[in-house]
């Protein structure tokens, strides 16, 4: 089950025509799919589109009412291949994933899909994970649209515009027999806003209808000679159809034309940022009443040449706002203008940053430079961000000493079961020496940071093992270590990594972090999840899978918090003479998800008067000498430092915050690393039983007795507080 429950959102999916839908961008897309008569939906979770998958996962009732098929795809490639259902059948289908990483994985299927073309509308909703908060390499989905010839929609970040784009996207796909990509930027996905809902539409042809009436057309299969035909079709038929539709439906927008002889061309997704910049320069207002003509490309691929030429016809200069690199659009527009012999000057990356997110600051600076050159009268204001940093009125004037600011990258949560895995590995390396460690994608990648500093490369989701495949030598005196999460394992790691290692007799140690969820993407279930999922088949052990594929040395650890045992197991796996890959499945439930369960249960138990034991760890400040060795092998957010209460000591002591969930890593680390005797665990028993109370009474009596001498002696030397 996902990290969040979407019960409230599911109600919104039922909203009827004329009602106001209020919610997140990605939920608006979900509703728009149902309004468009979608017949099937699939996808692979990942920020920023996880919520789309989670909501649909929780909404099976709504979906079954409408006969919409929904699948949690095994990977983005699986999701993209699903769209094959729309090749011959008039079925509208949509898939979603994180981009560009998901699009990378999906691109084989997407290329095949785009070659043969589609009959029913095929929509690929990509969450563009670019800029601040992104967790992946910085690339553009635009390239995929170009290389496979799929249309790319980039609507204005406004719920109404996004919903319209979904509906128009299906139509565009159908009239041009081409899959359509709908690109949503990170912030648009999490944008809260409103739009006017329509009724949901039951698909005119359902999945069931399609199954019962199979169709085939050999010309749609990617095999010569049809594949040569497809390329020709793309160029001669599908492209012109798409352009006609885009023009007729007015998918791109022009604002304020005729007001000036300069203009700005902008990707739809950047429109709001641009309008803010214009507002600050005195050239627009919150209602979008610009004094500078704008051409908003809600469709960024294909470029509609006539619209560009039309817009530029009465302009001496235009500025293009295009986020990311390479500057595909800018190159395209230069070609369009030059071929037409246009004299309009085209500016773009010469005035704007070549790389990075087009933030308000970046856009304002670029637009100001452009307008001051070509339309100075439009600039009536100067926002303070344009001032030099040396100007005391600049927002960037130094007001905080730089050394006081430290980065705060994301890290493992309090009580995370992955922390002890890395503690144990760090301790094992004290015995075996350092190893090359190939990391994967997932929360476990945080181990590359302080305090663990474990992990040298990451080659992609599920590719931790494959990333270590070349470092395999019979002559080496140590083996490499690879990491993989359960998510990545089922996504492709079982074959790309484990199977590969078995086949090639790789000597590596592979650690599969099995926390019972695809945790980093929001806690979705996977094949090996322990949860009892009513609509999915779970509880397929990872160890069985690896043994089935030929691994001989495999161990499953069911409690990662036992650091000493895990360390010893690591040492064994790193030193055993057994050939072939060694696989350790390190299993403990994701704490974020566990707490959601446990907290509820505890509250219920307390309410019902049942005995509840609450655990937390603590540090004796007198015993702690402030060396922080415990923190250096943990990094737990709840294990931190505080002023030393001892008047004779100055260095801060370790302390455990109230957020501690009592996972036990502190104690286990203190043992495994022979740290110090400062750690203790407090078990608070609420609603104690009669036996508890009796035992406590006896103990309290005895302790009072046994400590009397010590206290009496101390009282002679100490001042009683």
């Amino acid at each position, binding site marked *: 089950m996902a990290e969040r429950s979407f019960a409230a959102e599911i109600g919104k999916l039922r909203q009827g025509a004329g009602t106001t839908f209020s919610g997140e961008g990605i939920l608006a897309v979900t509703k728009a799919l149902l309004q468009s008569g979608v017949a099937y939906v699939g996808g692979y979770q990942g920020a920023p589109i996880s919520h789309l998958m989670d909501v649909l996962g929780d909404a099976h009732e709504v979906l079954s009412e409408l006969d919409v098929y929904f699948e949690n795809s095994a990977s983005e490639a699986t999701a993209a291949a699903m769209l094959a259902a729309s090749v011959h059948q008039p079925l509208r289908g949509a898939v979603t994933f994180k981009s560009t990483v998901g699009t990378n994985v999906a691109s084989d299927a997407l290329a095949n899909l785009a070659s043969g073309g589609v009959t029913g509308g095929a929509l690929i909703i990509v969450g563009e*994970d670019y800029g601040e908060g992104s967790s992946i390499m910085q690339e553009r989905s635009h390239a995929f649209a170009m290389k496979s010839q799929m249309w790319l929609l980039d609507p204005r970040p406004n719920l109404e515009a996004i919903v319209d784009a979904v509906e128009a996207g299906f139509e565009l796909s159908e009239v041009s027999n081409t899959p359509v990509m709908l690109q949503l930027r990170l912030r648009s996905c999490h944008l809260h806003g409103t739009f006017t809902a329509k009724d949901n539409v039951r698909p005119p042809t359902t999945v069931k209808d399609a199954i019962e009436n199979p169709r085939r057309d050999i010309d749609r299969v990617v095999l010569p000679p049809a594949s040569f035909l497809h390329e020709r079709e793309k160029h001669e038929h599908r492209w012109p159809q798409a352009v006609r539709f885009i023009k007729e439906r007015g998918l791109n927008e022009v604002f304020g034309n005729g007001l000036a002889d300069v203009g700005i061309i902008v990707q739809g997704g950047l429109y709001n940022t641009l309008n803010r910049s214009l507002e600050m320069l005195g050239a627009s207002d*919150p209602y979008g009443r610009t004094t500078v003509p704008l051409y908003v490309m809600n469709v960024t691929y294909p470029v509609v040449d006539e619209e560009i030429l039309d817009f530029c016809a009465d302009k001496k200069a235009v500025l293009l706002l295009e986020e990311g690199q390479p500057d595909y659009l800018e190159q395209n527009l230069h070609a369009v203008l030059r071929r037409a012999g246009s004299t309009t000057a085209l500016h773009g990356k010469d005035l704007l940053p070549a790389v990075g997110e087009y933030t308000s600051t970046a856009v304002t600076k670029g637009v100001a430079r452009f307008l001051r050159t070509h339309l100075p009268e439009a600039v009536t204001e100067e926002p*303070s961000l344009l001032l030099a940093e040396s100007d005391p009125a600049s927002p960037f004037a130094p007001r905080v000493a730089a050394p006081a600011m430290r980065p*705060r990258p*994301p890290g493992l949560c309090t009580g995370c079961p992955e922390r002890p895995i890395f503690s144990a590995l760090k301790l094992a390396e004290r015995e075996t020496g350092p190893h090359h460690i190939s990391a994967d994608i997932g929360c476990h990648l945080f181990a590359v940071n302080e*305090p663990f500093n474990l992990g040298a490369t990451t080659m992609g989701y599920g590719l931790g093992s494959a990333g270590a495949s070349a470092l395999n030598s019979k002559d080496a005196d140590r083996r490499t270590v690879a990491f993989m999460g359960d998510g990545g394992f089922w996504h492709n790691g079982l074959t790309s990594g484990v199977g590969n290692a078995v086949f090639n007799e790789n000597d590596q140690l592979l650690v599969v972090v099995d926390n019972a969820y695809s945790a980093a993407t929001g806690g979705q279930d996977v094949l090996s999840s322990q949860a009892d999922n009513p609509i999915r088949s779970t509880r397929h052990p990872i160890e069985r899978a690896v043994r089935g594929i030929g691994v001989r040395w495999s161990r499953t650890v069911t409690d990662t918090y036992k650091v000493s045992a895990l360390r010893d197991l690591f040492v064994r796996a790193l030193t055993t003479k057994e050939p072939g890959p060694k696989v350790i499945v390190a299993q403990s439930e994701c704490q974020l998800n566990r707490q959601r369960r446990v907290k509820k249960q505890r509250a219920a138990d307390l309410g019902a008067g049942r005995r509840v034991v609450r655990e937390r760890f603590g540090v004796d400040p007198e*015993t702690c000498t402030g060396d922080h060795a415990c923190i250096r092998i943990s990094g737990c957010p709840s294990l931190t430092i505080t002023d030393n209460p001892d008047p004779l000591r100055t260095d801060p002591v370790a302390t455990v915050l109230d957020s501690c969930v009592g996972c036990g890593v502190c104690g286990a680390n203190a043992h495994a690393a022979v740290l110090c005797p400062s750690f*203790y665990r407090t078990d608070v028993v609420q609603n104690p039983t009669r036996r508890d109370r009796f035992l406590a009474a006896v103990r309290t009596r005895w302790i009072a007795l046994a400590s009397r001498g*010590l206290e009496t002696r101390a009282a002679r030397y100490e001042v009683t507080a």
Partner: protein
Amino acid sequence: MTTTTLRTDVPGARRGPGWRDGLRPVTLAVLAMGGEGGGVLADWIVAVGEEAGWTAQTTSVAGVAQRTGATVYYVEMLPPPAGGVPVGGRREPVLSLFPTPGEVDIVIASELMECGRAVQRGFATPDRTTLITSTNRVYSVDEKIGLGDGRVDADELFAAAQRAARVLVAADFARMADDAGSVISASLYGALAGSGALPFTREQFEAPIRAFPKAAEKSLRAFAAAYTEAAGQVSADGAGTAGTGPAGTGTATATAGTASSATGPGGAEAGEEPVTAAPARPAAPGGPVPVTIGRRRPETEEDRKRAAERERTRIAASDPASLVGPALTAQAGRTALLPAAARSTVLHGVVRTAVYQGPEYADRYLDRVARVAAADPDRDGDAALTREAGRHIALWMCYQDTIQVALQKTRRHRMARVREEAKAGEGHLAQVREFLHPQVEELTDMMPARLGAWLLRSRVFGRLVHLLTHRGLVLNTTSVTGFTALAVLARMRPLRPRSLRFVREQEAIDAWLDLALAKAADGPRLAREIIECQRVLKGYGATYAHGDDSFGLLMAAARELPAHDGSARRLEALRAAALADEDGATLREELANRPVAG
């Protein structure tokens, strides 16, 4: 292409008010760490706005970025236009997804370094921003992992907040939330309401909290505490300056240097309000920057400690016996011969050493301090050498052996502290389990010197100890057997002076002091640095062993260094190197690169 619906066919310009005239949304950024409820806070704010008829939008970057990392949530809100949507305008206003540096009206930070980040990124600026920050610190991993004290200067962070705020509301909102049994998002929300930066009533603010009755009571308690604090701060500072009073509380609104944008009380009448949605007007660019209200930093723990120490120093001079137990009156009297500035510290040391071993041990401590005091060139002044010696000699003499740890674990005040820390309420039982891992050395250290030395060499004994303890020992101190075991250990104090370690430590202490005193005549600062090297002796097990190695290297270096104060800086740098990492690599490298001899 869509037809130009916005076209006015008036080349040249849009007419009407714009950004600088106040036709702009209220902009608000929340800087928090993932998991702190920043998203909930942003949602509450949006709910208040929407309920009042405003257009509200919130965005954030979510996903893995939110796992405990620094995260920004951003809200924009625009009241309905006075006379309807202006001609040619969009029905729905265009709001931005990014906070723009220099243009953020309200910044809420959950912690002091995140507040610093808001300043560094230009979100909080002195011409515009109501900056609401919690003054507590949540240390970054960078700050936590140092062997010494890696924390950044909180005063600098607070000063940055003062430099970058038009109105500053600063208090420990984390503690307020904690006291109310709630989370920081609730108290920060209360602070926002109390700051008066948004024109909504308290009831309006509380409504979204009440919508979820389950957690409402605790959240409202945190909200109320923070509301009162913030309102108090703003009205105390705001008289005649730039603060706007809390809406709905009847506080007069006064906006410095700007005439046009008084924000009306209560958002219920939002529709009748002028289009000026922004809570305050910025100065025109290039014009004078309004004076930031410089709230004094609320008294910190540090301030309270300093005041207490001043008081203690006074008592140490007049009535030293009152700072020790009845059996140490004579020892307290001896401190009168020591420099006044060092007495408070030394009295701590007297108590510490006496509890550790006995009054004779306290005398031995005083003898050692007196030796240093005799060489202190600044006896009548700050007496830093004596004071530091008083501190470090006591710490070293009370080294953490098994007996000492057992004593610490069995003291009554410790159990009381543990219960309080665990928030064990009435009727709740608390059990404490220690995570112990006795090493062969720690056991033999405790034994009479000869026996200890013999057992330490014994392989059978070593194996036996390993077998019993290598997986660690979990001892229930609250059980009869567990407590008895520790209480017996704590009573083994009389064995200590005959133990292997005691002999070794006393010799090392004297050698260390001899070295410091040998250098003191010509280099008192160097002597002090030698004394302070005791700081690297910390930790247990491997950490202690590494520290001990580093200490040896430092002493060897100190011996070689010429006896003048110029060497002090060098030794200080070497000590910093020793604390730079766990295994002493930096120190060894430093010594290899620049040998001290010659």
